[in-house]
């Protein structure tokens, strides 16, 4: 190839010819993909019909801030980087959807000339009384042109649905806020990891926070879980697991390894770093079998089971791969989304994988992708993975990138995803290639066999 390159450098006319050829072939390929995609869309086969509900606000981003509570109500924590995070409450009984908190307003950050709490990254958690907890952050959400030292830090938040009241439980740490969140409902402790990798423990009763030490490096584990004994677990590179022991109140690095395939490409190839592709991306606790189910960040989105009580450090079992169907058999798979959701009652796991093309040079998420996005299900009884199809709304709109996922008590699968907007005025973003107007909506998939 090097010889060919050098030869061509000397012949300018050939360069022009090859460039023309490139353009024609790329256009032809793109046209064929559009044809194929439309063929899928027109066919009822391979389509996963979902409903969607608009959010009352205009927030363009969401990560893991989706939770269907035990009473069936659905909480969404959406993000406006440079502005405020907002928390919404959807009630499936009357299909009402309302904002319950403008976080910057709640924390008195508006009108101060300071960086606000723009983001809630965590999946909300619930205590035994039905109170819902969140944790806020900014961590680079800017605005970049406002004093970086002005953001005060993340806060633990508690929402009491009976009183319809959001309460600030206090500062996590000056200038830092956690990404993931877990709760020990017996001891009433909250846990989170800040962007420099320190594990925090918030005491809900005393409204104090303790630093438990550093558990992560440059790319923070975005999902942690608490087992039935109150121990908390997270992952760190390369494919390792740490455990917070509720009895000793200390963190230990376990020697057990989670599934990891180093032959899969990292997040980007130009400067391969040890990052989220070497950790788990999302993990959920199953109160029925008392095990955790997780999906790896890289390695082709491996679904695995972690039984922390089997042996001194637990046992990990690889179950299947949950990457988008078009990537099966390939090594250039984008890293996983945060949509992993468990229906512990019906023994099913749902996942909406990233469908964006692998980017060699860039570090991009599934948001903004034009590609059709699938919903997958894994049956814990039959150990069978099923492609439920490309998601489309019941009114025929395309569904793009999804993040966050949770299953309601009735088996409804909730996701937060980008949906094609018929009226561009309702858009909060546009897809990268097609420039299609899109906005985040609460997506609902109701399995037929519920």
């Amino acid at each position, binding site marked *: *190839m090097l010889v*060919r*390159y050098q030869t*061509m*450098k000397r012949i300018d006319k*050939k*360069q022009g010819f*090859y*460039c023309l*050829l*490139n353009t024609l*072939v*790329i256009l*032809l*390929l793109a046209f*064929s993909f559009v044809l*194929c995609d439309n063929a899928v869309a027109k066919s009822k086969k391979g389509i996963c019909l979902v409903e969607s509900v608009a959010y009352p606000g205009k927030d363009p981003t969401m990560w893991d801030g989706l939770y269907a509570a035990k009473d069936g109500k659905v909480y969404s924590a959406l993000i406006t980087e440079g502005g405020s995070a907002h928390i919404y409450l959807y009630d499936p009984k009357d299909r009402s959807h309302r904002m319950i908190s403008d976080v910057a307003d709640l924390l008195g950050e508006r009108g101060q000339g300071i960086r606000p709490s723009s983001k809630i990254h965590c999946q909300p958690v619930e205590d035994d009384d039905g109170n819902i907890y969140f944790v806020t952050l900014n961590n680079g959400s800017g605005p970049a042109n406002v004093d970086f*030292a002005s953001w005060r*830090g993340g806060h633990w938040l508690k929402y009491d649905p009976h009183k319809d009241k959001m309460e600030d439980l206090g500062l996590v*740490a*000056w*200038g*830092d806020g956690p990404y993931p969140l877990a709760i020990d409902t017996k001891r009433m402790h909250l846990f989170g990891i*800040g*962007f*420099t990798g*320190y594990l925090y423990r918030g005491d809900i009763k005393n409204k104090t926070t*303790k*630093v*438990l*030490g*550093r*558990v992560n*490096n*440059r790319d923070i584990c975005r999902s942690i879980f608490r087992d039935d004994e109150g121990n908390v677990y997270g992952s760190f*590179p390369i494919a390792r697991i740490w455990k917070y022991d509720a009895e000793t*109140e*200390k*963190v*230990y*690095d376990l*020697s057990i390894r989670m599934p990891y395939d*180093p032959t899969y490409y*990292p997040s980007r190839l*130009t*400067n*391969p*770093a*040890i990052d989220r592709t070497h950790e788990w991306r999302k993990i959920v606790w199953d109160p029925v079998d008392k095990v955790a189910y997780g999906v790896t960040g890289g390695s082709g989105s491996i679904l695995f089971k972690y039984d922390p009580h089997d042996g001194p450090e637990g046992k990990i079992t690889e179950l299947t791969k949950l990457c988008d169907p078009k990537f099966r058999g390939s090594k250039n798979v984008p890293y996983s989304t945060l949509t992993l959701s468990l229906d512990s009652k019906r023994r099913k796991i749902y996942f909406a994988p990233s469908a964006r093309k692998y980017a060699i*040079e860039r570090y991009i998420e599934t948001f903004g992708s034009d590609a059709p996005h699938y919903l997958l299900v894994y049956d814990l009884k039959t150990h069978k993975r099923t492609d439920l199809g490309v998601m489309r709304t019941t009114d025929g709109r395309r569904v793009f990138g999804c993040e966050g996922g949770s299953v309601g008590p009735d088996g409804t699968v909730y996701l937060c995803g980008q949906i094609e907007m018929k009226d561009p005025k309702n858009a909060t973003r546009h897809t990268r290639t097609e420039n299609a107007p899109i906005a985040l909506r609460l997506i609902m998939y109701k399995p037929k066999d519920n």
Partner: protein
Amino acid sequence: MTSCKRRALTITIIAVLCLLAIETAVFANGAGKNVKKIKHSHRTDLRNLGYPLINEIPANSSAITSLITASDGKIYGGTSGICEGEDAYFFIFDPVINKVRHLGKIKGQGGIHHAVVEDKNGYIYIGTGKSILEEFEMHQWEPGHPSNPTEDLIDWDKVDIRFPSYGDHIRYEWKQLKGIMGYQYIDLILWNDIKNHFKDYPGGHLYRYNPKESNREVKLSDMDCETEDLGIPVAGNSIYTLTISPKGDVIYGLTYPDGHFFIYDIGSKKFKDIGPIQKEITFHGPERHWRSLPRAIICDDSGRAYTSAGRGVLVYYCPESGKIVSTGLKIPGDSYPAHGHTDYAVVEYFAKDDSGLIYGGSSDGYLFSFDPEAMEVINLGRLRESRRLRCLTVAKDGKVYLIAGERLTSRPCKLYCYDPQTGGFEDLKILAVDRSPYYLWRGYQFDSMTTGIDGTIYLGESDRRSHLFIYIP
């Protein structure tokens, strides 16, 4: 051929053509030249503290809080636990084998803080104590309050001396009414919390380690360090910092939380407690659960042992008179008269260049030089909004490398270089080692530095899961 197969064949052909075209386009247009290169902006590397998962120092015990370069070029270090009940470890980095090996744990001792020295015969001395990194609960109310299970450990008869900043009438009432009156004040509650933290603590030990006998044995994680216990210098106190005389025959130390200056005479094997270096109790910060006491001592070439004391004044122990003498010089710190303060900065770290000039860092983040012959302190400046100049060392070319920044989770420490020839600081940024895909780590907290015989700078990370960092200037 079915329509499905035809479509598959067509797509395959198009895909192959496309791949060829893209490949051609990239090279024909010279785009390959624009692919970003992996660039290492720091000449840094790190070493694990042992063999991972085999005999590495446990993560919770791995915060490096002491480092020295021994006369034979080996680097010795001591660690501190980051939480209660963790043991300190002693370790060696041998540049010849290019590895860190731990030399065993110091059982029952939580930390080795700025407290490793080498004597004239090559023995290493280790001072231990409760880990200063260990957090403990700070209470809002006085002992006896439902939220505060601590005991009243304030010495009420001396409370007026320990807390002199209050008015005479208040201090009089404190002595008369003891806790009834005094526990309205947050500094007294904080001091009582610290005293309770040390309540049943017998005291830090001074140990002697013989490298000739004990360096060869490779230790597993739970094995003890082979040391000779020389005793406890001051009961109920940790050893906070140590230094040794230029002749290598007398060790000077300071204790925490009572701030006693002590001497250990190596020849006679005897301790001498000189008493508190300062009487008043202050909490200058930025660490909220620490009493402000100097964290370093250094000897000049004549044998005087310098540290800072009350009001940030440089003092020295005079071997001839056996007394602590004030220089009348203050180390740089921040003060705002409107705030009515009596607190002051303390010295964090010292290092000496070949000419005998001493460099120091203060808890307010200032670098200063001290010429013991001219008795002159020069404030060389402050690096960051974040306070604390945590540690420093003088390189072979005379430049001073230093770590600045508080022990915050949100704003990691950074490495800087001060050039005495030109003045000013160079920001060398966060210490990051990137050897991905094999290992990658960013160091955020550092509390000790030393310069190796070949000029390599060694930095002790002081976090959970710490490493020995290596920087080649």
